[in-house]
């Protein structure tokens, strides 16, 4: 790890010290670079936590209050599971996904518009470091919001946590998937309007129509087929398996679809970063 402390400076001419830093750019300093960007991205959303954490938790709790009140007596999506209990993991995962997307996309578009992206473009970040830090912070925000929703909703219908590792795997991978989509959207968009378009016309419908509020098995044949083409459906369904050990689709299939989708979007994001698409002219 390269450090410059007061003692070093007294012994070395500064330019020579800097040169030694430059030439010793080993893995230690690369790890520090990555950790710093990750920490900065996390501190960024934490500092405005009212908006980035508390607000989405409140939204999800309101959904639960309204939908469970109206539908509890009329709908049973999974055998032996109350509608409220069924709805909670769906809302948790929806919050995880939407907030993971919002984190990387809004961070990038803000720093693009403010001009502060230059502070990330001047240091020697590799595409992997940029990808890891932006997506990593998105995963953390998604999980923090998801846990917040869970904490404030468990009282309504205590969850079973029948297969918690499945819930964790889908939660983290789903957040990574949406964090990556947010990264792509943030790189592509030049203004907030374009980003809002991406969010409202792609991410929002895909999450709403993925079985958060219902089981797709209860849908007519046509819409069931359409739902199965939506990768978000597999994220929600797989996450829900972690709670009830029951799902519309075998969780291994859902995991396979999610991993494949993640590999594709991660490949696109890494390619954009390597080319400096819209970042370096």
């Amino acid at each position, binding site marked *: 790890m390269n450090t410059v402390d007061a003692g070093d400076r007294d012994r070395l001419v500064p330019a020579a010290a800097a*040169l030694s830093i430059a030439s010793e750019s080993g893995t230690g300093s690369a790890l*520090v670079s990555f950790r710093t960007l990750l920490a900065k991205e996390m501190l960024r959303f934490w500092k405005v936590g009212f908006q980035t954490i508390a607000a989405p938790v409140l939204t999800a709790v309101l959904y639960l209050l309204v939908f469970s009140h109206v539908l509890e007596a009329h709908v049973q999506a999974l055998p032996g599971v109350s509608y409220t209990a069924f709805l909670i993991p769906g809302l948790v995962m929806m919050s995880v996904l939407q907030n993971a997307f919002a984190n990387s996309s809004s961070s990038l578009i803000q720093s693009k518009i*403010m001009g502060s992206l230059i502070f990330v473009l001047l240091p020697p970040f590799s595409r992997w470091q940029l990808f890891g830090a932006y997506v990593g912070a998105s995963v953390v925000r998604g999980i923090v919001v998801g846990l917040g929703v869970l904490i404030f909703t468990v009282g309504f219908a205590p969850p079973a946590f029948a297969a918690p590792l499945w819930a964790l795997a889908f939660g983290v991978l789903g957040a990574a998937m949406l964090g990556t989509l947010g990264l792509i959207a943030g790189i592509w968009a030049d203004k907030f309007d374009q980003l809002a378009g991406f969010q409202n016309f792609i991410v929002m419908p895909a999450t709403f129509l993925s079985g958060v509020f219902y089981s797709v098995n209860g849908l007519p044949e046509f819409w069931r087929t359409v739902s199965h083409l939506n990768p978000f459906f597999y994220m929600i369904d797989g996450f829900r398996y972690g709670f009830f050990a029951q799902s519309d689709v075998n969780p291994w299939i859902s995991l396979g679809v999610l991993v494949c989708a993640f590999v594709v979007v991660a490949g696109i994001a890494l390619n954009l970063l390597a080319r400096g698409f819209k970042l370096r*002219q």
Partner: protein
Amino acid sequence: MTAIRVSGVTKRYGSLTALDSVDLEVERGEFFGLLGPNGAGKTTLISIIAGLVRATSGTVAVMGHDVVDDYRVARLSLGVVPQELAFDPFFTVRETLVFQSGYFGLTNNRAWIDEVLANLGLSSRADSNMRALSGGMKRRVLVAQALVHKPPVIVLDEPTAGVDVELRQTLWAFVRRLNREGHTIVLTTHYLEEAQALCQRIAMLKSGSVIALDTTRALLSHIEGVQMIVRARGVLPPSVLVHRIDERDGAIVLRLAQPADVGRVLADCAAAGCEIEDLEVGRADLEDVFLQLMADRAESERIPVLANA
């Protein structure tokens, strides 16, 4: 060893050529000036050196490391003060600098950060949020961000544009000290007197091409002698008007070969019954060189433009 080597760099944006086959070398430890009018390509060149913009053709190396193929070491060697006043509104001054330091792989950099803060007069604002700072203070933070990893090569793109005299003096004192300690400094500025006072060598850019590259002293020697600005009542005699090079606000600008000619001009004016109302005598400065070079170039460029029309 060369601090910055720019070899045959061309940058095109569609049909616009921002840089046209630029060759340039900045030696280690130099204080180098990059001058030119707006749109000459200075910022494009700096952006290519910093890896923010990719050249259409040609190569750039910083401390011997190619800015594309060996970007890690090239960027570690370089600190850039950008022209645009950018800041991250979420953080304090110190957080901004600690993050920037970490981006370059440095930890335990507090002592140097404190020293940079003190040298730029920022110590008392270290814990202020960036949003709360004035424009001048934000610019100081930009300078601090560029220096936080102690780069051997420091590029300042118009660092004193729109800042007060106090910051200018603080900044130049600090940058001079860094230069004395071995850092290479590249400066672009609109204030030619700053370039003349600070830079050992100067490149002048115009329309994407280097039109002059020499030591500041050699550039100044192109315009030898004395410059004399005379405001007179009556017509100046022909023996004086042969030295006329320009006219400014009704005053005649003369260029004389040597200081002794001043007395001769005054005597000729008196003999011709021409009463002198105001008089200014001085040496030619970088501004004269700059204006002359830009004008010379405009003259030579005008011919093909007219021929095409």
